[in-house]
């Protein structure tokens, strides 16, 4: 943490005491567009909610359980309860037979490993209780993690214990086993080898792994003619192609001005945890080097845009022109004909280009242009040119942007996939192996992968679930979870680390390493041996050190360059007509990069060849020609149209990998706060034009395919643009995923994966029950979030402070139940300037505290159980809103209103200042929740954990009580962690050090926005944070004396910007 600078130095001497600056009266915050735009029906509903003790419908039973049957059940359980109590339940103690080394029952172990995620990897430390992993934390030694973890990484625990995963090898519908598959493959291998493997094709899910790369190269050597296609629904091929066969890795704490162009640096782009960490570092208002300024220019509202100082919502078709205009303004040479002319940029945005360019030029080598994966290669190339011209592109770690070669990465290619589908349809493929991934579900709609797949005589699929592709293949092999199998991975900056299993495969899983090892060598080998062979440079001591640390300091495998199949290249050369242009250009770039991996992209970027230009134009966003017949169809169906379609990964389920994970399904969408659904997001003006409202069902038509989705009006979405998210609309995947949302993958075209400029939206009958948490727990427009610009902050550092709060006479209803002077007194600080709203804390809290999942219907009745919520406030105009995120856990008020109304003393204070909740005293009156001004208490309306499958019970944290029906619960400041550390310190005979106790939300926070510690220790980090002048408490005027305080948000707008 940076030292706080002395702000009084910049404070002009004034006769007036620094006081509370009235927040500008015109700055009204609103939580939902309904609240602002006030349709009478919605207003009425909100009014009802305001007047009622709980949200509308919160007191009603779910449909399947009517009031009558509840009474019947109650009667029956009364009778049974009497009988059950007659007999003491016999409980068994089951010790080990031969105790494993190092396991002490009751003391969790922590192992470093790596979680791969597409082509990136996050180093993590996983907590294991007697051999069952229960909690993921970041690995402080790993460069992509810094000790923090993201929401998806936190949720991986539930993926491990997903009872719907495939549990056996299947040959058709018959149960088989791994040995039988090995025998079958041995026969196939002989037949395939005869033709050099020309009839073998492998579709690989994305990876960045030295071992998988080594085995893939062995496979190419054995079958030189084999087709190898990497397919990633979140393909980065344009980014990689445009950046000179490299990928930009950002070091935002070295940047001063960042322009994010369709680039969700903080959530859905690669390396988001690292980006959050460095972004927050550079955004501390007290930082001596100055505060980073972020511009976002984007075709869909992203989390990065929500955190930007200036955000320009631009119809997606114009985004590329913005970069062209910026390049022109900066005098950077025209990067190629793939870019549209700058003058096509709409005037309001064009007027801003010069201001942004001036700011970038002033920042010089600290100015960065970041472009997201949705943009075509030419835009990436232009951005790389700008970064080089500014001087910000340079060596890894030292410069704000470093272009990293893609070592051991299987780079996705839609062109190769299209070519493969053609070959499959033409009967040129005899054996197809799907190595992870799910192309039947997520391949672009114009390819019709499923039909082509049916024409292949022998198909094999390795996947965790017997999903859309798995059930269409002859052989299905259950894929092991990364916490159950050996492997390795490279982070985007090239750091190699090992994936070590924490538990033997629960469901007979086979890892990708093991399958590829069998394909490449012909014999099945254990995953450990295959990985160890790749890491043969490490002796046993070094290997143990690597496993212990989770990152390799010495002995890591040498960077192997990108993976490309020789077969594909030779075939491409042989087929003179219609060469896969992007692939060959990319291969050329790959070779250059492989020769000199550290070379800046200037050296690696080949002069644009004719083919590449052609490829670029066909991929041009919006402007690209879509398949003619589809365009015809679309025209025939409806006369109106011409909306822009943007296809995004879902920040919760991504492209569908985590669709069967209840934690992420119930995680509120960071921006729309929608759960258990995907939707067609559009701006208020567009919705008005289409005559639709939130909850209406529409058909989204693009590329000749249509998907039914509910509308959600999301302020900040560009006009005439529809935004949809991947990963939903699953069939036969599992009990969580099935029937949730609609699959938008068919709307994609293999020529333009990320949208269309000829999308149509048709209103259809019916409305959809949407569960959104945004309007729940309304807090009546009080000044809960406080913010200022950097200039205002310097002028009046105590802008967030209310003088009244100091003068409030503490008038307790009774004398303080405990004294607050003896340490430790726990307290928490949350910096709104740092928080980016990424949601990692919510999942971390859920995993740590056994917080139940309640389902769509319950959430729509405001019964979500999350102990920590992240509120999102809009302010300003609905078409260009400013957004603030505010995590709200229990405030642990010293003068707690909840305690004063509990008739049974089920919520009381302890001597360390915790507001404790005693489940066994609670009789469920819910008075406490009614009297809580922050609405952070959650009530178990039903026994949500009753039907938890056996396998999923393994995910429970044994140190936290599992709550039953009828009790209130809430944030405990992770009291179990406090107890664990306190007892360990006591046994060691030492005091508890500052920072030793970390709450789950704090530990996972990628921006370090949350700090927890002892109020009586003046040197503690938390008190340093709380002594900032922008510290304030929520609703201080109520004299609740909350222990959780906030540091007001400070923005850094461009002073030139009016």
């Amino acid at each position, binding site marked *: 943490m940076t030292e706080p600078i002395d702000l009084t130095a910049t404070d002009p001497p004034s006769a007036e005491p620094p006081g509370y600056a009235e927040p500008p009266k015109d700055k009204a915050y609103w939580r939902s567009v309904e609240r602002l735009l006030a349709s009478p029906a919605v207003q009425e509903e909100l009014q009802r909610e305001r007047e009622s003790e709980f949200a509308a419908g919160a007191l009603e039973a779910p449909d399947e359980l009517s009031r009558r049957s509840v009474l019947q059940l109650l009667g029956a359980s009364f009778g049974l309860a009497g009988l059950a109590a007659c007999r003491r339940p016999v409980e068994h103690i089951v*010790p080990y037979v031969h105790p494993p080394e190092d396991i002490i029952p009751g003391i969790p172990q922590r192992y470093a490993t790596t979680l791969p995620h597409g082509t990136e990897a996050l180093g993590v430390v996983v907590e294991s209780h007697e051999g069952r992993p229960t909690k993921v934390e970041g690995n402080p030694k790993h460069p992509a993690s810094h000790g923090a973890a993201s929401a998806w990484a936190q949720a991986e625990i539930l993926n491990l214990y997903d009872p719907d995963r495939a549990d056996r090898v299947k040959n058709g519908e018959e149960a088989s086993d791994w040995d039988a598959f090995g025998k079958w493959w041995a026969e196939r291998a002989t037949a395939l080898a005869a033709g050099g493997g020309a009839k073998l094709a492998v579709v690989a899910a994305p990876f960045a792994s030295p071992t998988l790369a080594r085995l893939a190269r062995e496979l190419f050597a054995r079958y030189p003619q084999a087709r190898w296609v990497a397919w990633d629904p979140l393909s980065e091929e344009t980014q990689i192609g445009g950046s000179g066969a490299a990928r930009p890795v950002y070091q935002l704490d070295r940047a001063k001005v960042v322009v994010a162009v369709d680039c969700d640096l903080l959530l859905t782009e690669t390396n988001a945890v690292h980006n959050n960490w460095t972004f927050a570092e550079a955004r501390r208002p007290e930082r001596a080097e100055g505060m980073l300024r972020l511009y976002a220019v984007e075709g869909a509202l992203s989390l990065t845009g929500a955190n930007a100082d200036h955000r320009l919502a631009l119809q997606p078709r114009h985004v590329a022109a913005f970069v062209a205009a910026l390049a022109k303004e900066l005098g950077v040479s025209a990067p190629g004909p793939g870019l549209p002319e700058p003058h096509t940029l709409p005037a309001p945005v064009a007027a801003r280009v010069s201001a942004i360019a001036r700011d970038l030029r002033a920042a010089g080598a600290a100015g960065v242009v970041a472009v997201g994966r949705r943009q075509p290669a030419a835009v990436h190339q232009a951005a790389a040119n700008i970064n080089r011209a500014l001087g910000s592109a340079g060596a890894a770690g030292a410069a704000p942007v470093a272009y990293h070669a893609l070592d051991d990465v299987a780079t996705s290619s839609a062109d190769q996939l299209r070519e493969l589908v053609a070959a499959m349809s033409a009967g040129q493929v005899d054996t197809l192996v799907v190595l992870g991934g799910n192309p039947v579900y997520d391949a672009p709609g114009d390819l019709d992968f499923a039909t082509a797949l049916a024409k292949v005589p022998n198909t094999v699929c390795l996947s965790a679930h017997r999903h859309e592709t798995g059930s269409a293949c002859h052989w299905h092999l259950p894929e092991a979870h990364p916490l159950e199998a050996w492997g390795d991975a490279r982070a985007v900056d090239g750091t190699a680390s090992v994936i070590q299993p924490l538990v033997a495969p629960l469901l007979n899983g086979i890892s990708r390493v093991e399958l590829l090892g069998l394909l490449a060598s012909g014999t099945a080998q254990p995953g450990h041996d295959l990985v160890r062979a790749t890491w043969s440079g490490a002796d046993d001591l070094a290997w143990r050190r690597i496993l212990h640390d989770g990152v390799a300091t010495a002995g890591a495998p040498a960077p192997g360059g990108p993976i490309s199949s020789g077969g594909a290249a030779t075939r491409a050369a042989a087929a003179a007509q219609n060469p896969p242009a992007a692939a060959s250009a990319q291969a050329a770039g790959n070779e250059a990069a492989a020769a000199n991996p550290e070379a800046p992209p200037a050296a690696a970027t080949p002069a644009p060849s004719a083919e590449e230009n052609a490829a670029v134009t066909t991929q041009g966003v919006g402007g690209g020609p879509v398949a003619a017949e589809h365009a015809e169809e679309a025209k025939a169906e409806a006369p109106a149209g011409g909306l822009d379609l943007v296809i995004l990964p879902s920040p919760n389920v991504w492209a569908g990998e985590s669709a069967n994970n209840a934690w992420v399904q119930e995680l509120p969408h960071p921006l729309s706060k929608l759960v258990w659904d995907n939707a067609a997001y559009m701006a208020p003006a567009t919705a008005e034009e289409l005559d639709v409202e939130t909850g209406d069902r529409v058909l989204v038509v693009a590329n000749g395919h249509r998907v039914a989705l509910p509308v959600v009006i999301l302020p900040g979405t560009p006009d005439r643009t529809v935004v949809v998210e991947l990963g939903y609309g699953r069939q036969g995947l599992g009990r969580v995923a099935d029937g949730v949302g609609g699959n938008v993958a068919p709307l994609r075209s293999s020529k333009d994966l990320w949208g269309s400029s000829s999308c149509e939206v048709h209103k259809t009958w019916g409305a959809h029950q949407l569960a959104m948490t945004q309007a729940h727990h309304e807090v009546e427009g009080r000044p809960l979030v406080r913010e200022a610009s950097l200039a205002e902050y310097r002028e009046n550092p105590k802008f967030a402070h209310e003088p009244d709060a100091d003068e409030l006479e503490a008038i307790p209803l009774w004398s303080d139940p405990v004294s607050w002077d003896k340490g430790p007194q726990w307290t928490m600080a949350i910096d709104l300037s740092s928080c980016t709203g990424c949601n990692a804390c919510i999942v971390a809290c859920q995993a740590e505290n056994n917080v139940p999942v309640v389902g769509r219907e319950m959430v729509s009745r405001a019964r979500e159980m999350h102990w920590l919520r992240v509120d999102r406030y809009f302010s300003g105009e609905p078409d260009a809103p400013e957004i603030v995120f505010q995590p709200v856990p229990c405030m642990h008020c010293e003068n707690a209103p909840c305690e004063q109304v509990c008739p049974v003393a089920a919520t009381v204070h302890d001597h360390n200042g915790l507001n404790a909740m005693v489940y066994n005293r609670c009789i469920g009156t819910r008075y406490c929740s009614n009297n809580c001004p922050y609405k952070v208490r959650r009530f178990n309306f039903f026994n949500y954990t009753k039907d938890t499958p056996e396998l999923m019970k393994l995910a429970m944290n044994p*140190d936290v009580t599992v709550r039953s029906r009828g009790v209130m619960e809430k944030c405990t400041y992770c009291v179990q962690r406090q107890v664990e550390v306190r007892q360990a310190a006591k046994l060691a005979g030492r005091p508890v050090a500052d920072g030793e106790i970390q709450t789950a939300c704090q530990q996972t926070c990628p921006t370090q926005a949350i700090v927890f510690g002892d109020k009586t220790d003046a040197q503690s980090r938390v008190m340093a944070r709380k002594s900032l002048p922008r510290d304030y408490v929520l609703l201080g005027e109520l004299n609740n004396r909350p222990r959780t305080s906030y540091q007001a948000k400070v923005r850094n707008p461009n002073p030139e910007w009016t």
Partner: protein
Amino acid sequence: MAQVFPKWANRVPLILGVGAVGFALFATFGIWYWFSPSFTDAGYRPEQPVPFSHKLHAGDLQVSCLYCHGNVERAAVASVPPTQLCMNCHTLVARDKASLEPIRSSASSGQPMMWVRVHQLPDYAYFPHAPHLRAGVGCSSCHGNVKAMERIQQVQPLSMSWCLDCHRNPKHYLRAPEELLDTSWEAPKDQDVRGAKFLAERHLSPPIDCTGCHR
């Protein structure tokens, strides 16, 4: 007119009144006594799969408590020993004894023993052994004179009020380190003085907050 009620009926209200009071007293006592853990739980003495005698092992043969319950100083649970630990001795001692058959078959088959839990706390109460031992609470304060028990049994109620009796007044129970494993320990006459000294020396402040044990 003949009397409707016989004469003894005059006493009915009195009998009813006394009876009701008596019943109320009896019910109060009954619930206080028969529903309390001192009655329902203390004395629980289930049959174990193997008739393991603490009296023989810990008493007569003087095997240390820590030989089998080795994690008690480190972890929350004292841990029941793994089968392998039994076999450390019983590959040599009493190797053919019929009652040890479950142990031998567990060791050879790998199937764990299913011991019956005697000291059972509710799931929402978290009791850690290690800090208690560290503070100077001996085994027998909760488990009784184990070294004299043929079959292990619960002697204390393990109720919340029983826990709090000690947490509020720990000086009656704190011992010197060398006395911790002595299950026949009885408080000496000057226990309150000794206990107060231990309390101060060891900087003990037993939690009496809810969060001390419930989370």
